[in-house]
């Protein structure tokens, strides 16, 4: 933990992105720096563990998340139920294992959507400049004044009401949402609201990269703008996007848990760590262990992603500091 701080405080080291000839070695260098960061490696290890649990949930979970056993509700931890059972007699360990699936999927897919939406918009805004840039950035500014949880809750209310009833061309989306237990709605809500940060970041990067000589050179020899953007600007603006995306994964996991906590996330019976906390909070006086296991799962996952994100930032660009 303190190590990443020390690296950060040591200030900028030699790595910069200026010379395209060093491009390949940059990633190798960065990876080696990352491996030297103990916290980041531990975080990466835990993330891999959670991903494996999520993939093999069907094999690992002792019970199905649909199994209700009303004859054995609120069982304390025992040999049959390692983490006890909840108010429906569901096995908490199994819920936790299936919940990892929801959390990891939300974290990765939502972040992917955010990057896919935010990078092009930010790149266009930064590259074209002028009126397009002004309109996009005014819009981003207005959206920024709005607490994101509030916006996401409102978008989620709309999606939860509208998506299941959607017909026509949107019917496959409605079906997919049902199949994923309401996850698609969460992806859409997060994608619609969180591209702002990525767009702003990419725009800033592009604005500074645009002034570099190699871009001027490319323009001078008549490379079309689209090619300049796709081949030169976006790849060079990528490092901070990777860091932001990694640090955004725990934010998305947290948001899904928070939404499920207030009943605006995935649909029951799809198990979610946030929903488990909410259900456990009702019975906190008598059965505190119900709330502690999902709390620990969320906390450890968030910590791991933050360690990895911090490590990546230090590794990719030690000069970038806290941004």
């Amino acid at each position, binding site marked *: 933990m303190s190590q990443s701080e020390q690296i950060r405080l040591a200030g900028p080291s030699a790595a910069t992105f200026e010379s395209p000839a060093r491009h390949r070695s940059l990633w190798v260098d960065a990876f080696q720096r990352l491996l030297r960061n103990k916290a980041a490696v531990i975080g990466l290890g835990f993330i891999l563990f959670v991903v494996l649990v999520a993939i093999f949930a069907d094999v690992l979970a002792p019970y199905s998340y649909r199994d209700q056993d009303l004859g054995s509700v609120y069982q304390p931890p025992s040999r049959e139920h390692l983490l006890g059972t909840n108010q429906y007699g569901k096995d908490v360990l199994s819920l936790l294992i299936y919940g990892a699936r929801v959390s990891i999927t939300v974290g990765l897919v939502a972040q992917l959507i955010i990057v896919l939406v935010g990078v092009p918009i930010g790149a266009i805004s930064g590259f074209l400049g002028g009126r397009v840039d002004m309109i996009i950035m005014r819009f981003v500014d207005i959206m920024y*004044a709005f607490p994101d949880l509030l916006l996401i*809750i409102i978008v989620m209310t709309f999606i939860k009401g509208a998506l299941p009833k959607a017909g026509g061309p949107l019917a496959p989306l409605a079906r997919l949402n049902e199949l994923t237990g309401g996850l698609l709605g969460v992806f859409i809500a997060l994608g619609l609201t969180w591209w702002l940060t990525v767009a702003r970041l990419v725009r800033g990067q592009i604005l500074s990269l645009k002034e570099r000589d190699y871009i001027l050179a490319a323009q001078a020899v008549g490379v079309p703008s689209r090619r300049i953007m796709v081949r030169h600007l976006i790849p060079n603006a990528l490092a901070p996007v990777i860091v932001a995306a990694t640090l955004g994964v725990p934010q998305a996991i947290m948001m899904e848990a928070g939404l499920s906590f207030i009943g605006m996330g995935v649909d029951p019976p799809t198990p979610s760590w*946030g929903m488990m906390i909410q259900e*456990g*909070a009702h019975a906190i006086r008598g059965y505190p262990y119900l709330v502690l296991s999902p709390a620990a799962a969320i*906390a450890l996952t*968030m910590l791991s992603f933050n360690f990895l994100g911090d490590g990546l930032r230090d590794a990719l660009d030690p000069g970038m500091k*806290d941004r």
Partner: protein
Amino acid sequence: MTRYLVRRVLLFIPVLLGVYTLVFFLMRATPGGPWDRAEKPLTEAAIARLNAKYKLDRPLYEQYFDYIWGVVTRFDFGPSYRNATQTVTEIIAQFFPVSLQIGAAAMLLAVVAGVSLGTISALHPNTWIDYLAVLFSIVGYSVPVFVVAPVLVVVFAVWLKWLPTGGWDGLFTKSAILPVVTLAIAPTAALARYSRASILEVTRQDYVRTARAKGLMERAVLVRHILANALIPIVTVAGLYLAFVVTGSFFVETILRVPGIGRYFVKSIQARDYPVIMGTTLLLAFLVTFMNLIVDLLYGFLDPRIRFE
């Protein structure tokens, strides 16, 4: 300065209008209305009468302008659908002060605790107290508030029985400790982390060495030279966490059963109580925009080099 202030205040209009428009149309586009009941569904005639009473049968654009006109001219946010005896303004007046007290107390606690922790840890780098502070700030910064809240309840209310598991008897009672502390943890952690970094950086500046060299007392060096110059990033982070304190109250109040606007908002969302959702959203958006302006103005006081134009 005056021109800057006027322009910033004028900017509230598009921001709040944008928020209003977005929320209005998203909510109207959502199928199903406030009169949907799972059990004992209302008759069509009853729904028609309710729609007529709350003007939901009028054309959409009329509703759109009617509502905003009522807000601007009469400060009237409409009636609550869920709670027929109260208007939204009354509900906000009843529930918002509790949230405001908790939020303000949490922010104050976070600034005092966070900056102290960051200062101590920056003045003694790489000692056990520094490691402890850094560990706290990483954990507090990563763990969401709806995880912190139940864990603190289990430890301090269920196991140790020092504090009540929930409820609210006022700010200066035991019942306020858990909500305020829970809400303060993430901003405290972030403030500790950023003030540590900021102070460490300032400490290495030449003017600090000069101040020490000319024989100033350590206290004066710390307050007049180090802290005064390290405050800008600290204020920025504190400003970023204002919105967090607002939205964090949704979870804290729900878990700790505090009768504040956050808990009420969550219930209204679940009940599709449009006017309450709208009123609360506008209020919170205004609050966050307003506090951001205050933070920006604070920069000018903290650093005279910053000019507003």
